[in-house]
């Protein structure tokens, strides 16, 4: 089959909340191995876009096609199985669970979920467990070797940056084709953010086929890592192109209303 030019293709996607149009006939597509930045003022529909794509909210109109498969109305878990993982704006780790457990939650589709396997075939289970442990360790090692020794300790009490790292590991462990990052820099310092981005890029370079859509307010980040970005306002796409180009765009500057770009 012909090489795929568009990993994800979104056509005139719309989502209403009550009267408000959170997404208004949004067209968007991303090519394999690209990093697409999604920017726009608060409430412009960035997170809603993620939530519709990952099936948390059903779309009201339009279509979402991922690797030629229509996932517009698909349930969250189908979207995940198709190869899309995400992080959340407000960190959604299970703080009472260990770092390992949190990462394994992301590994769901690659773990044997059969009752009989889990309860009765303990030796086979142990093998799978040890494999997963190694995988989690290697991945975690990229982000923060320090955490590897504490992998069986609760995620609670870790600093924000570590939680972000674990969340990203949770999203990456199952080797998705598309990663949706929702404001990874939220609640972190400038340096921490940059560190995190370096790690992400490192992972991306290691496994060749990883495409990323990132929602971010830190324009520095966008500038550094995205190949292309899309600016949303009131759920509508108002500009598209390399960062420098959209940053210069009149409409965009108005939308941000003096927000320094």
């Amino acid at each position, binding site marked *: 089959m012909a090489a795929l030019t568009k990993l994800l293709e979104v056509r005139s996607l719309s989502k209403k909340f009550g009267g408000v149009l959170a997404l208004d006939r949004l067209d968007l597509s991303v090519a394999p191995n690209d990093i697409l930045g999604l920017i726009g003022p608060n409430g412009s529909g960035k997170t809603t876009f993620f939530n519709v794509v990952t099936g948390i909210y059903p779309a009201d109109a339009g279509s979402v096609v991922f690797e030629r498969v229509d996932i517009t109305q698909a349930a969250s878990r189908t979207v995940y199985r198709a190869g899309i993982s995400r992080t959340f704006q407000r960190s959604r780790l*299970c703080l009472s669970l260990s770092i390992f457990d949190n990462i394994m939650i992301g590994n769901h589709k690659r773990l044997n979920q059969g009752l009989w396997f889990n309860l009765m075939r303990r030796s086979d289970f142990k093998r799978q467990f040890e494999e997963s442990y190694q995988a989690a360790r290697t991945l975690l090692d990229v982000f923060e070797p320090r955490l590897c020794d504490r992998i069986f300790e609760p995620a609670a009490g870790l600093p924000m940056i570590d939680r972000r790292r674990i969340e990203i590991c949770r999203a990456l462990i199952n080797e998705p084709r598309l990663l949706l990052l929702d404001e990874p820099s939220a609640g972190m310092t400038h340096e921490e953010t940059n560190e995190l981005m370096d790690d992400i890029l490192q992972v991306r370079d290691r496994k060749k086929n990883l495409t990323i859509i990132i929602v971010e307010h830190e324009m520095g980040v966008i500038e550094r890592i995205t190949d292309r970005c899309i600016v949303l306002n009131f759920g509508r796409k108002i500009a598209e192109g390399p960062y420098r180009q959209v940053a210069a765009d009149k409409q965009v500057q108005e939308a941000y209303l003096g927000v320094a770009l």
Partner: protein
Amino acid sequence: MAEAGQKTNAPLWPGLAALLLATAYVGTMLAAEKQRTIIALLGFGIAAILLAGWLRLLEPVGRSFADREDALGALSIAATLAIGGYFREDHFVLLLVVTVLLYSVATLGLNIQFGYAGVLNFAGASFFGIGAYTSAVLNTYSAVPHLLVLLIGGLLAAFIGSLLLLPVLRTRGHYAAVVTIAFALLLKTFLEVNDVLGGPQGMQVPGMKLLGWSFNDNITIGRLSLSFYMSYFFVSLLLLVAAFILVRRLERSWVGLNLDALRLDETAARCFGLNVARWKIIAFLLGNFLIGIAGALFGMVGGFVAPNNYTFADSLILVSILLLGGIGNPWGLIVATLIVVVVPEKLQTIQEYRFLLYASLVIAVLLFRPEGLLPRPVRRYFPGWRP
């Protein structure tokens, strides 16, 4: 417990010592007759625990239980057998012990629903009752082998429970609570007004028979004579061990992880491929199944069932045992059951005040130690496993 830097497994002896002391203590408590002795024992017990905690003697115990659970589990079984053997002639003490064992099974079932999957169930006693009534009806009107009756009791509890699945799955939080509460009341009223099942009068339950051997006859082997409760004691212990292992393996597998995930953050869990409905159903049915089996056996032990045995208040007791012991920690549940069942029975002076005292106790725990007496430690897939 902090495994940070701990590279080798903790030694066995602290756990062993603790176990021996506990066994001795429980034995004395069960044997004690005089109110003064019992009160003294209780005071001593509490003081000892507090002291041990203050001297940091409990952490090593916790660690050796974490690393050497299999060994210590086996030893605990031995300890229970020792207690049973010691009181082989004492009907009432054995009945108490059996009650503790079977309630533990029931709370383990509740723990799957509630402690892991976070599915509220305020009708635990009702499902326990369904099991008990099953054995009442089948033992009276049918020749079904009694071991099979236990199984049917469990299945029936699970099946009747499945009638609640739709509302249970669709509702959340308080709304889910009302579903099970309504069911608890519904079932009790139903049993009361329904003549076929004896109405408020209840039913007699013929005792258990196994391979022609009747459990309700006292046992005499040569010169030593045993209470007929001894046979029930063995079966109950067997059941508890099985349930314990089941729950343990469940927790220490991807299944346990899934249940935790959907309890702690359903949305995130969905986004990582979890079939929330499936796992909630499994947890709810499995829990009720365990509760039902325990109920079926308890029905035969008690020899009598009546609607008033399975009220909403009794369901509350089960739930609060869970909280008292530390949600999600099977060891804690057993300890809590022991306390809730035995203490008021022995301490006649508080008989009248049992519900009052122990409701206050739960309030205190919720206010000052919300994670329970033995908080659930972070998951270890294989006790003592080290990379």
